[in-house]
């Protein structure tokens, strides 16, 4: 048992931190909030050159063949630097389902393009019902000759407007069990009948409303089997949940570091405010929240990677805990910064707004608490 990073993970962490400090400064994060695309193609290419797009893709498909623990380590650094853009969308939402359920041909065709940074992807899952469960998938896919025709709306789709391809979860049949009848389609993002509207969000990330109007998909552009797409989504959701947790861990750590530093430097009543116990105890609570989030996230990543029997429980525990804990951390961060924290100019607000975004993604604490209760067989 060793809860620390191994040598390779330590190298990855240190390299990523140095790289992102240089290549993803605060100015870029702010610029991308206003940018229509929401990412820098230049940074994207540089990250691809580091092999990061292919981090969890096997070497035979052009990746570096690492695993979920390494992905968590890297995403922690992404959260620290608030890296904008479609990394999680492409690497987790795009590549994971293909690795999980793609035919060899699909893998040969898609994965090297993802690994090289050439193809940007996402998963179009949620709809206006805003549900993470199978009955949230109502977008209709009807067979018509050798095609399927898609009609409906997807909402909260991360980065869809800049993708080359999407995996779209659609309903091909309805029965008693909502988990049956979901099919995953490979969709060319530029196909006729698809329109995108970028949503204005609290974090100024780029989530989209994607409308499908009579969009024709060749019947063999299916991932996995027709009607049997939901278990694939389930797997992707777990990886995405861990990814969100890892991002939150890094985000919370950085918010904490900045705040601690501020408390040591800010002078009121003739002394640093960090000498007051009211501030000290907030930060002692916060460090427990940050560290706790990190280790439950590592445990979830490791359990999922190793296929442990309680992996699902660990994933839900990680998201339930980290969602709440990271919110407590950034709330303390705002409070300790006082008025300056509320200004647009100062950086701490960037963390505060993005925390809420990731807290909500892939299920908030309430959602995962109920899953925890179910898995405990309460």
């Amino acid at each position, binding site marked *: 048992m060793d809860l620390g990073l191994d040598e390779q993970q330590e190298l990855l962490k240190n390299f990523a931190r140095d790289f992102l400090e240089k290549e993803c400064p605060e100015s870029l994060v702010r610029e991308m909030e206003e940018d229509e695309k929401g990412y820098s193609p230049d940074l994207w290419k540089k990250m691809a050159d580091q092999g990061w797009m292919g981090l969890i893709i096997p070497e035979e498909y052009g990746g570096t063949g690492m695993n979920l623990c390494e992905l968590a380590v890297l995403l922690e650094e992404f959260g620290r630097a608030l890296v904008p853009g479609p990394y999680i969308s492409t690497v987790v939402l795009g590549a994971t389902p293909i690795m999980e359920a793609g035919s060899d041909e699909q893998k040969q065709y898609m994965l090297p393009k993802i690994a090289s940074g050439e193809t940007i992807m996402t998963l179009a899952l949620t709809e206006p019902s805003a549900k993470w469960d199978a009955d949230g998938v109502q977008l209709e896919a009807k067979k018509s000759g050798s095609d399927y025709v898609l009609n409906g709306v997807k909402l909260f789709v991360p980065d869809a407007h800049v993708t080359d391809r999407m995996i779209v979860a659609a309903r091909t049949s309805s029965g008693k069990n909502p988990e049956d009848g979901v099919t995953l389609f490979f969709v060319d993002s530029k196909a006729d009948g698809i329109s995108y509207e970028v949503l204005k969000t609290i974090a100024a990330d780029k989530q989209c409303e994607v409308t499908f109007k009579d969009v024709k998909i060749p019947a063999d552009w299916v991932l996995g089997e027709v009607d049997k797409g939901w278990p694939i989504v389930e797997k992707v959701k777990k990886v995405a949940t861990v990814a969100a947790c890892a991002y939150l861990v890094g985000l919370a750590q950085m918010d904490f570091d900045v705040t601690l530093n501020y408390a040591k430097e800010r002078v009121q009543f003739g002394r640093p405010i*960090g000498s007051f116990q009211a501030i000290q105890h907030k930060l002692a609570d916060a460090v427990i929240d940050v560290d706790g989030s990190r280790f*439950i996230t590592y*445990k979830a990543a490791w359990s999922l990677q190793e296929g442990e029997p309680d992996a699902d429980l660990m994933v839900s525990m990680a998201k339930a*805990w980290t969602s709440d804990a990271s919110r407590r951390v950034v709330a303390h961060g705002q409070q300790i910064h006082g008025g300056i924290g509320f200004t647009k100019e100062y950086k701490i607000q960037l963390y505060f707004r993005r925390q809420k975004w990731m807290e909500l993604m892939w299920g908030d604490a309430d959602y995962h608490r109920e899953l925890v209760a179910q898995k405990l*067989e309460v």
Partner: protein
Amino acid sequence: MDFRLSPEEEAFRQEVRDWLGDNLPKDWQQDRFSREQSPETLNIYRTFARKLAEKKWVAPQWPVEYGGLGLSVIQQLIFNEEMAHAQAPVGYSIIGVGWVGPTLIVYGTEEQKQQHLSAITNAEMMWCQGFSEPGAGSDLASLQTKAVRDGDDYVINGQKIWTSGAHLADWCILIARTDPEAPKHKGISYFLVDMKTPGITVRPLIDMMNNHGFNEMFFEDVRIPRKNLLGEENRGWYMAATTLDFERSSIGGAVGGRRMLEELVTYARETKRNGKYLSEETTVRNRLADAALDVELGRLLSYRVASMQQRGMVPNYESSIAKLFNTDMQLRMARAGMEIMGLYGQLEPPSKHSPLRGKFERQYLWQTGMSVGGGTPEIQKNIIAMRGLGMPRP
């Protein structure tokens, strides 16, 4: 990042578990009898400790030459985890193993080690700890009990309080002021005191559970030989902080919480109120899910400490966090249990209506006290902030 135990460690866990299965009668489990420290409960503690002694398991973390087995940090963790989960009555040796031995190993004379270490590992001597005073709680270094040199003796006068088991113990570790002129941390010395020495009076301090565990101790011209001074005079404060390289992850607390959770989940699943199982209620489900998160987090924060020690690192604020979290967690667990049980929660054992033999009613009171003992959460947070985070002194 590896959360798995090695096959050898798993085998050790099984060995401890099997042994407990054979050697720990159910009615010796710590929640089966009262927290009252009476001659009857002492007998349970002592008998169990002597069984442990046969396996060299009283202080298995100590080096072999001092009667231990020199277990690795992870083995210590496993051992402590299994003892806590079985609710083994390990009270007899707690002070001896946790405080007396480690300090003696570092600072003791050969004679002191000879006299005391094997008596601890053989479960022949029970120790108590005379540290706190009425005016020296969180601010322990302000203690006023005095020890004055007189020929070959020290003469001790003063009062100690919260001394667990003083009425049963054979020996006491005592810290007392030897230099009233020095700054408060620098005038304290560390003594080994035979509880049969004339001039020591022990008075029960009954807790709100109506148990006799704590005591007040009065020292009136108590003469102890100079050879019972531990280490150098006036260095006692620093010796009291000796922890050695033993596992100090607070895993026992984490496991105590897990044990409560398991019983609570079963209770909620099996108990009907108004025609519905408690486990069907959303609020109950949420409370139990939160409790499960708490337990898992407590365990991970403990494992982190052991994992650092295993790597040869010296934990700093990390062990304070584990202690703080696991103490708070058990209190939250006890409260959650009481809230889930509603009216029934208030019933004391042995009422036939009292759920889970009154465990949660007892824990609700007990954990409230435990949250104060050994460094309050507020003091722990001060330590985390100043020592761990480098924040300025108030």
